[in-house]
């Protein structure tokens, strides 16, 4: 997939947020949300983005969609460099890239029927003639596994899982090429989580939907993705084929994996417990950002930033010791 033209290519993306303080609101510091992140995503591919809170995964998703402006770097979508596109220029592109949010409760307007909520993007982008609007919405509802009577209902009449289906239907309504799903199952119960994961997998297989799947849950990411990208404090630690996760090289990926409780009481293994908390992105550590918690860190890690380089197969890793 690396050879064909990727649907999305991100090069050295940097995003800093100013921290205002003092009487006149002077900038007193910078939050380093993304420090040189590169990524490519092929057509029909699902890339999983995993990391702990504050690692920049949500910022990356939002910056790719230009919901926040990047500080530096390049975003190439479908061959077009959209990095400096204005909101006006972005508008026609919006139908090609959509987002599904984490909180299915907050992302639907409580005063809009589901029919209206899903028709809105269809109207804005003039996808279908007005006469066929309802038909198209009903078709979308059936794609995501909701009944027709949902059309006239309001968001409060649905459960969390159903609302997430509505969010997905709304994102799909404009036939996007790319969907960024930001923690789409985190707010849902386990049995419902599986339903939504299966739905996204099906959409990928049936319609070739490309997906950037953002989650903190390594189990879920590994299950749904083709490739997995592990982030820590705004930097990419490792990119690898989802099937290779059990042979991950980077100490952070390894400890993340070992921290996930396994639903099998006979499964015995050594758990690597990372000491301390994730450092503040206001003042990230020098050298390798992970060195303060890394069980294998050496002197070199404190001073020199490890570059992301090719490892086995097409995998990439950023560590001095691998």
């Amino acid at each position, binding site marked *: 997939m690396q050879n064909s033209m990727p649907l999305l290519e991100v090069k050295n993306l940097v995003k800093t947020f100013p921290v205002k303080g003092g009487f006149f609101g002077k900038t007193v510091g910078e939050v380093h949300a993304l420090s040189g992140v590169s990524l490519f995503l092929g057509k029909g591919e699902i890339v999983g983005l995993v990391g*702990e*809170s504050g690692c920049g995964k949500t910022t990356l998703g939002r910056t790719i969609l230009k919901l926040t402006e990047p500080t530096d770097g390049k975003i190439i979508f479908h061959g077009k460099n959209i990095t400096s596109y204005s909101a006006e220029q972005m508008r026609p592109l919006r139908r090609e890239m959509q987002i599904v949010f984490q909180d299915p409760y907050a992302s639907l307007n409580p005063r809009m029927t589901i029919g209206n909520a899903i028709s809105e993007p269809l109207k804005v982008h003039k996808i279908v003639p007005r006469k066929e609007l309802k038909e198209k919405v009903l078709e979308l509802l059936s794609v995501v596994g909701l009944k027709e009577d949902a059309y006239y209902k309001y968001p409060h009449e649905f*459960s969390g*899982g*159903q609302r997430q289906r509505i969010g997905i239907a709304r994102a799909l309504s404009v036939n996007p090429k790319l969907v960024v799903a930001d923690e789409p199952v985190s707010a849902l*119960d*386990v*049995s*419902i*989580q*599986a*339903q939504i*994961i*299966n739905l996204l*997998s099906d959409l990928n297989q049936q319609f070739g939907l490309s997906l950037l799947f953002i989650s*903190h*849950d*390594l*189990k*879920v990411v*590994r*299950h749904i993705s083709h490739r997995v990208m592990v982030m820590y404090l705004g930097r990419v630690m490792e990119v690898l084929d989802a*099937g290779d*996760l*059990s042979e991950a090289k980077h100490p952070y990926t390894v*400890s*993340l*994996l*070992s*921290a*996930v*409780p*396994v*639903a*099998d*009481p*006979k*499964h015995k293994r050594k*758990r690597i*417990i*990372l*000491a301390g*908390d*994730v450092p503040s992105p206001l003042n990230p550590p020098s050298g390798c950002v992970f060195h303060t*918690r890394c069980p294998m860190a050496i002197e070199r890690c404190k001073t020199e930033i490890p570059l992301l380089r090719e490892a086995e197969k097409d995998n990439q890793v950023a560590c001095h010791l691998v």
Partner: protein
Amino acid sequence: MQDIIEVKNLTTELTLGDVHVPVVNDVSFKIRPGEVYALVGESGCGKSMTALSIMRLVPEPPAKIVGGEILLHPKNGGSSNLLKLTEKEMRGVRGNRIAMIFQEPMTSLNPVFTIGDQITEAIILHQHLSKKQALANAIEMLNTVGIPNPTQRVSQYPHELSGGMRQRVMIAMALSCKPELLIADEPTTALDVTIQAQILELILKLVHDFSMSLLLITHDLGIVAEFAKQVAVMYAGQIVEQSSVLDLFANTKHPYTKGLLDSVPMPFKQDGKLTSIPGMVPDLFELPKGCAYQDRCEKVHRDCKEIRPQLLGKNLKHRYRCFFPYAK
């Protein structure tokens, strides 16, 4: 060995208008000294209400404990039924003999008091120590739960600490009076995976060191498998399966338990499609006649729609509420 706590036929009802609905329905379990007992289920299954009922903290109204017994058996004898205690007597139990850790460490700490104030409050109240002694105890507890520089930390406010640190403070507070039973309600759900691992290991170590028992409430079967010894699976207010953890995983009986187990992706096995449970948790106000799980069950039968199954095997170690359990 005698059990630390015995919950017998506990029933807690929720009242809306003149409709009464049991949110905790005939729940029974016992916890041995030093044992980790897990209560697992999805949101709305009644697991948190069970915990709040044991603490007698159910919001009343609309909820009310309407039946059953909660017997606390202290090590030095003299059992008491918590449901029969006066509010004043109950205050001597809460935080002292049974302590609780909640899911959200930010909302369960008071933002306008230092963490030292909040930990010493319970110590002064229950152990009648002076403020100075209590503060020394608090510092020692903070040290036990792995908070660096405890002497400085006692004078800090909750917002100055990270999520993991706040949960450590909650644990220090809960353990400050050396309770016999600790109830942890989703203690790590709001935390990152690597912090979750730290906190769970810490709780387990302390449970062992202080020889406490732990009632662990969670939705994560991975946590159950790794940390608990006994387990009860709840659905729509009732226990649907109850056994040792090893048995629950090796010899699953109830279709709901099996459905839950199948919907969790395994981190090391490549698998095709996840098996999901169709539909969703039923509304407790509109529970069907018969088994509460019938609409989502793959083994549903005519009988399931007519008769509500009982928890079978009253004296056996493995009990389940199903007419058509899975064979071994």
